[in-house]
C-alpha cells in the first residue's frame, strides 16, 4: 500500500481571506511577529500496491480535475514515505 499527500494552496498572487483573518486573529491571542498566513488543503490518498510513476500521474490528474481549482490554486503531489 502506498500513500500520497496532495497539498493544494491558493496561488501566491490570489487573495486568501481566510489566511488573512487568521493572521489578524493571532496577534489578538498574543502571538506576535507573525507576518503572513496562507491557508491551504491537504489530502491523504491511499492506494493498493506501490507508488509507481503511473500512479503518481493518476493522482496528479485527479488533483487537476477535482482536488484543485487550477484557475486560482496550485498543488503538489508527493509520496508519503
Amino acid at each position: 500500500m502506498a500513500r500520497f499527500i496532495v497539498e493544494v494552496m491558493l496561488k501566491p498572487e490570489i487573495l486568501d481571506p481566510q489566511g488573512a483573518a487568521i493572521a489578524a486573529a493571532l496577534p489578538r491571542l498574543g502571538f506576535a511577529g507573525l507576518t503572513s498566513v496562507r491557508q491551504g488543503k491537504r489530502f491523504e490518498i491511499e492506494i493498493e500496491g506501490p507508488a509507481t510513476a503511473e500512479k503518481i500521474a493518476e493522482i496528479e490528474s485527479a488533483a487537476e480535475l477535482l482536488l484543485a481549482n487550477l484557475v486560482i490554486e496550485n498543488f503538489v503531489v508527493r509520496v508519503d514515505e
Partner: protein
Amino acid sequence: MTLDTVKSALIDANQVQPYRELGLRDDEYARIKSILGRRPTSSELAMYSVMWSEHCSYKSSKVHLRQFGEKQPKTDALLVGIGENAGVVDVGEGYAVTFKIESHNHPSFVEPYQGAATGVGGIVRDILTMGARPIAIMDPLRFGPADASDTKRVLPGVVAGIGGYGNCLGLPNIGGEVVFDETYSGNPLINALCVGVMRHEDIKLAKASGVGNLVVLFGAKTGGDGIGGVSVLASESFDSAKPSKRPSVQVGDPFAEKVLIECCLEIFAEDLVIGIQDLGGAGLSCATSELASAGTGGMHVVLDRVPLRDPSLAPEEILMSESQERMCAIVEPEKISRFLELCTRWDVTATVIGEVNDSARLTIEWENEIIVDVPPRTVAHEGPVYERPFAEPAGQKRLQANLPNSIARPRSPEELRMTLLDLISCPNLADKSWVTNQYDKYVQGNTVLAQPEDSGIVRIDEKTGLGVAISTDVNARWCLLDPYEGTRLALAEAYRNVATTGARPLAVTNCLNFGSPEDPAVMWQFERAVTGLADACLELGLPVTGGNVSFYNQTGDVAILPTPVVGVLGVIDDVAKRTAMAISTEGDELYLLGETREDFAGSEWAHIHGHLGGMPPRADLDHERRLANLLIEASTSQILSAAHDLSDGGLAIAVAEMSLRKRVGARITIDGDPFVALFSETPGRVVVVVSQWHRNEFLALAASHRIVTHHLGVTGGSALVVADNFEIQLSELADAHQGTFPRLFAGTR
C-alpha cells in the same frame, strides 16, 4: 524594469510601446500622444488603455445611449440621473432609492464562484457609493443548455458564489432569472442588481472638489487581482488559444465588504466626505481620474503610499489592480482625523494618498518621480466615441418569415396534457428553488415577496410600510427576432410584473448584453434595442436611471441572443397590501385580463421544439398602462386574492404556478382553440383571483380601466382541471415542475 517617468518619456520620446497588446488602436494611441504632447509613460498608457476600453468608456454604445437622456420623460422622481455610479429616485416620505444592474459575464466564465461573488460585491459598492444602505440584490442569469457539461461546471459555481457573497453580507436575494439557451454556452451572462435606500439629504456624488482636500484610499490592500481584467478580459471574447491573456482572478472577501459598508455608512452619517467612488473595473486609474474629472479638476497622488498586499507590484500594476473591497474618498483636512478614527474602529485600513488641487492635471508620483501627468477628463470622460456601422443582418427577413407553423401542434386532450407537463418541467420554466434556496431571501426581516413571485418586494420603512418592488425581465428570443419590439416587450413585462404585485412602476435600469460591436449585425441589434427601450420608457413615463453595457459576449463568431435585461423599480405605499401569486382559498373566481392571440414565435413551446423564427407580438403600452393602473388600484383596495403575470408558457403555466404555490387547484374553462388558449404567449395578460364578495367591485373597476376580462373558472380541489380537455393532479404537476433542477444539478458541487 526601469521606472518610466514623465522625464524619461520626454528624453526617450520614440520608445516603442505595446499599446496594441493593451487593446489600443493606432489612432487611439496617436490621440493620447497629441493630448499629452509626448509619448505616454507606461503608467499613463496603462491608465488610458484600461479607461478607454469598451467596458469603461462605452465608446461603441455612447452615441446610442444618449437617447435615454434625450427621450427622458418629465418626472419629479429622478434625483440623480445617468452618469453617476447609480441613478437615484424619490420614493416619498423623504426616502430615496438607488438601483443598478451590472454584468460580470466574462470573469464568471473563467472562475464561476469568484466571478459571480465579486460581481455581487461590485454592484453593492456602486450602491453604497451613492450614500445608500444596500438592502437587496437580484441576479438575472443566462447559461448554455441545462444538460451541457460546461453548464454543470458554471451554474453551480455561479449560484454558490452569489449565495456565498450575498449571504455573508446579510443581503436578501429577492429574485432574478435563470434562463438557458444554446448561444450562452461559451458565454454565460451573470448580471447582478442591487438596490439601496437613503434619505434625500444623504446622496453622495463621485467628485473631488475643494483645493487642499485629501484623497483617501480605504478598505482592502492592493494586490495583483484582475490586472488587465477590464481592458483584456471584459473587452475581448475568450480564445482558448491564448491562455496567456488570462489574468489573475479577483477573489472577494464578503466580510471585508460588510465591514466596509458599515464603516462607510457611519462616515456618511457624520458627513465626513465631499465625494466618494468605489474601486471596481480599472481600480485606482478609474477612481482617481473620475473623481478628479468631475470635481475641481486637479489631483496629486503619491502612489508609494498605497498599502500593498504584494510588495512586488509595479506602479502600472497598482494603477490597474482590481483588488476588491476598496473605496476612495475626498475628505476635508479638518475632518480627516475623525474619518481615520472611524476606519480604525471598523478595522479598515485607510491611507491618505493624495490631495485635490487646481492644476487641472492628475499627477501621480512614485519614488519621488512623476509617472503620470494627464488632464483627467481625457482619461475618464472624453474617451474615444465610435459611430460603429450597423446594418440589419442578412438573414433577418428570412428569420422573421420562418413561422413556427411546421411544428406539430397538440390537438387531443392527452397531447395538451403532455404539452403542459413538458413545458412546466423544461429547464426554463421548471421550479428554480434549487437555485434560490441557496440564497438568503429573508435576512434583515424586510422581505415581503421574493422569487418565484412576479416581483421582489422589500419594506423600507417599518412604521409606514413603505416598500419597493423590483422585477427584471427579457425574452431574448423575441429580441433576436425583432430587437426593437423585443426590448419594448421586456420593459412591458417588467413593468407589468411590478404592477401585478401592487407597486407603482417608477424607474428603469438595464444591463445590455450583446455580441461584438465590431459586427454591424450586432450593432444593429444594439441600436434597435436601445431605441426600443428609450421609446417605450418615454411612452410609459419612466426615466432610465442608469445601466450597463456588456459587449463581446460571443463564442467564436457566434454572438449570444441580444439580451437587454430590463429592470423596473416600483414603489408601494404599504407592503401589507401587496398581491402575491398563490391561489390560497377554495371557491374564489379566476379571471384572465387581456386578449389572447396566436403568439408562438419565440415562445418557450417553440424553443423546446428547437424552433426560433417569426415575428414577436407587439407591445401595446397603452394597454399595459391601463392594466397596471387596474392592478395597482385593485391591490391597494385589497380586492385581489392573488395575481400572476402570464409570460413564458402562457395561461396553462401561469395557472399551474399559482396552484402549486399553496397546492390549491383550479377548474378553468377555455374558449376557442385550446392549444392557443393554453400556451400562446400574447403579452399584456394577467390572471387574477377574486373572492365572490369582491367580484362585482373588481369587474366594475376593470371596465373603468377598459380592460377586457374573461371568467376562467373557480379555485379549489387538488388538481388543475381544464374543462372538456384534461386534468392533472397537482402532485403530478409538482413532481414535473420541481424534479428538473435537482435531477440536472444535484451532486454537481
